């Protein structure tokens, strides 16, 4: 029996191998990108995740986009201006642009889009109308449109980056349940197929106003397991993969010819939140001491492959105040500050006491959420213990961390990361007391007042002055233990040339295909 069985098994395996070769047409292989998560919806008014925005930005376009250097840049609007009341924004649309279904891009499409964002029946999740305090949209002529806001909002263009303009006929004629998988826009690509959890296929939009994209077909595949993504890259099943670790990038660079890795300083600010409503943490000297206690140079070398530097305050480049420098590792100064704040180790057990109670606390860290998050937390905790604050790291599953964050039950110290919209106002906004994800309970009257001024300051110089002042204040007050900007790592085959963006998004026209053979 085994004799008869074995050939049959081999035959089956042989057939399987032979079949795997079928269907792969030589020549025009699509650009294949492996992503770690699946898009849930491609309706821009319900999208929330980075991957959804990434897919959408290749199919749809906003009035104002974010350029590779993260500054706002004209997209469907060629230019814009705000009037003297500072509540009326006029956008001048690019002429001769058509949606891929043939509808024209005009003021009507823009009005339809903004009205759909706050359609009471549809109940979309778009935050744009709220953020820009949208009152109404006015069609001036076919190619001029005005957004009226209820109050002066200085950074309207920043908020419009994700406000993709939609063709009215397609979106009003297609039921919401279907339209979420059939996005239609003016962008460089047309979505031609979406097999859920399997792949998304896009074809170049030959009529794109930016010029016909060079890469004709792009396939996005969600592959949740990192090792599987790397395996696909190595076997030629993918050209670009996202979300790998620094270690994996190093391995790839070190010994695998034909492959390359990319990394970029991302927008996520990793910090340890200090709950200033807990015990001695209300004293800024204690918070400064904790910042001086952390030896971040060692962390960079040991865990971050020497990439990046310690964050000085909360605002990302290029809007950061260059005059604000990061906290220096100085355990002696840390100890002096703690003593100044009245913390003593009376019983000599190596742990400081505040009002007779030893400083034994926990630091919550979400598991597998941030790159090397647990390692960063452990390193910081060890440094804090060295100056007499006994910190124990408590790893929490992400959903538990989120739930505790909402219920305000996180420990006195918690490792967290805020993403960025790459603007000084939104960057500073993460320290607003009204923000639900901000558990520092830090309420500084000067911060509140200056931040309010910043929101209504339209003049670039005034904004810079206010923002720089706020950054210095935040550094001085130290509601966080400042750590770093998270790096994003990617890997790719040698046949592409690309430079990753800080906002984790992948814009296909920015990718070049090298037609020549792989290097080496």
């Amino acid at each position: 029996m085994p004799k008869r069985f074995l050939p049959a098994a081999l035959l089956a395996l042989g057939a399987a191998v032979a079949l795997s070769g079928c269907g792969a047409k030589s020549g025009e292989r699509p650009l294949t990108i492996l992503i770690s998560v699946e898009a849930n919806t491609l309706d821009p008014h319900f999208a929330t995740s980075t991957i959804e925005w990434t897919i959408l930005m290749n199919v749809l376009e906003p009035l104002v986009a974010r350029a590779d250097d993260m500054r706002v840049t004209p997209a469907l609007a060629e230019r814009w201006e705000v009037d003297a009341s500072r509540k009326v924004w006029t956008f001048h649309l690019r002429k001769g642009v058509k949606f891929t279904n043939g509808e024209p891009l005009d003021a009507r499409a823009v009005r339809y889009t903004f009205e759909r964002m706050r359609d009471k029946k549809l109940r979309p999740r778009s935050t744009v109308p709220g953020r820009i305090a949208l009152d109404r949209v006015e069609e001036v002529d076919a190619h001029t449109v005005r957004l009226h806001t209820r109050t002066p909002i200085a950074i309207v263009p920043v908020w419009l980056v994700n406000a993709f303009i939609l063709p009215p006929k397609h979106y009003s004629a297609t039921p919401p349940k279907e339209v979420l998988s059939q996005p239609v826009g003016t962008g460089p690509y047309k979505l031609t197929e979406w097999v859920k959890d399997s792949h998304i296929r896009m074809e170049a939009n030959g009529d794109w106003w930016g010029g016909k994209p060079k890469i004709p077909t792009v396939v996005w595949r969600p592959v949740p397991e990192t090792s599987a993504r790397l395996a696909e890259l190595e076997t030629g099943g993918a050209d670009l993969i996202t979300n790998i670790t620094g270690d994996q990038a190093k391995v790839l660079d070190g010994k695998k010819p034909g492959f390359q890795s990319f990394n970029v300083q991302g927008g996520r600010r990793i910090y340890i939140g200090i709950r200033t409503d807990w015990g001695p943490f209300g004293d800024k000297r204690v918070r400064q001491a904790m910042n001086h206690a952390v030896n971040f140079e060692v962390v960079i070398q040991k865990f971050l492959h020497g990439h990046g530097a310690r964050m000085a305050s909360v605002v990302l480049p290029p809007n950061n105040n260059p005059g604000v420098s990061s906290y220096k590792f100085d355990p002696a100064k840390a100890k002096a500050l703690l003593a100044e704040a009245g913390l003593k180790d009376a019983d000599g057990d190596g742990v400081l006491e505040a009002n007779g109670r030893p400083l034994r606390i926990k630091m919550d860290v979400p598991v597998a959420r941030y790159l090397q998050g647990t390692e960063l937390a452990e390193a910081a905790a060890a440094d804090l213990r060295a100056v007499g604050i006994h910190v124990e790291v408590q790893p929490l599953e992400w959903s538990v961390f989120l739930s505790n964050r909402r219920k305000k039950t996180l420990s006195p110290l918690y490792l967290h990361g805020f993403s960025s919209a790459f603007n000084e106002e939104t960057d500073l906004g993460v320290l607003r007391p009204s923000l639900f994800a901000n558990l520092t309970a830090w309420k500084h009257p000067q911060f509140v007042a200056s931040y309010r001024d910043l929101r209504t300051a339209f003049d670039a110089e005034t904004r810079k002055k206010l923002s720089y002042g706020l950054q210095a204040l935040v550094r001085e007050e130290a509601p966080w233990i400042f750590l770093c900007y998270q790096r994003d790592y990617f890997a790719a085959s040698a046949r592409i040339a690309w430079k990753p963006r800080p906002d984790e998004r992948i814009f296909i026209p920015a990718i070049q295909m090298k037609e020549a053979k792989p290097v080496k």
Partner: protein
Amino acid sequence: MGAYLVRRAVRAVLVIIGVSFISFAVLFLSGDPTDILVGEDWTREEVQRLRRDMGLDRPWIVQYARYAGRAVRGDFGESLRYRRPAFDLIAERLPATLELALVALLLSVILALPVGVLSAIHRGSLIDQGGMLFALVGQAMPVFWLGLMLILIFGVDLGWLPVSGRGTLAHLTLPALALSTYSIARNTRVIRSSMLDVLGNEYITTARAKGLSEWIVVHLHALRNAMIPVVTIIGLEFGHLLGGAVIVETIFAWPGIGRLMIQAVYAKDFPLVQASVTITALIFVTLNFIVDLLYSVLDPRVRLN
């Protein structure tokens, strides 16, 4: 027979209600779907409004009652993340999972049957020892490790098979192999011991005494009776394979309900988790029910008891 059927059916319904109740309670205690849906730049007020809009500020028992009321009419509600009926999302992905589980089951039976029977016939021989070693290793290997090893060996090093996704028969090979290994190993043992039991019976000795050839004794007399417990195991095995698909689907990026379920759990997508758990339980219970019926047909003692 009628009373037996009714009893089994009632039990099946109770199991499904129990499963849906427990999964709802556990999920509810572990968090809140708004945690995933809100943006980090939201204010407290905005978060509260979303919770109210979604009806999440009500007691969970009220929410369960509302869910259960609709579910019995076939309406499992709408996924919070996908904003589409949960049932549709599952129906879209069920074929992929069934394909994987069925092929794994087939592999399991095709491989386990000859190895198990041969091991029993040649008890203590090299074949038996080899077969049992395979069974031990197969049961001991964690599926996520095996999956990654298969990818590295057959995908990366040898380059024979694609490492992820669904499409051709070749795409199916590695995930099916990873999924079925445990089941092959287990079935090999079950078949072997069942066969050994039967071979020790007096009627086998009688058959041999009649001068029948060993081939007929084994295949016609022993194997048929040895199959009774195996049928039960295989029926339930299918349910286990559906469950095991959760891990395999994630490793191999197989677009089935296992991956959907994992994502739904992470996102606290209550309606989707509820629907997928309930439907999986329904499949499991139905299979169990069919096996019970088959069993009572094969073995009259079962229904008389």
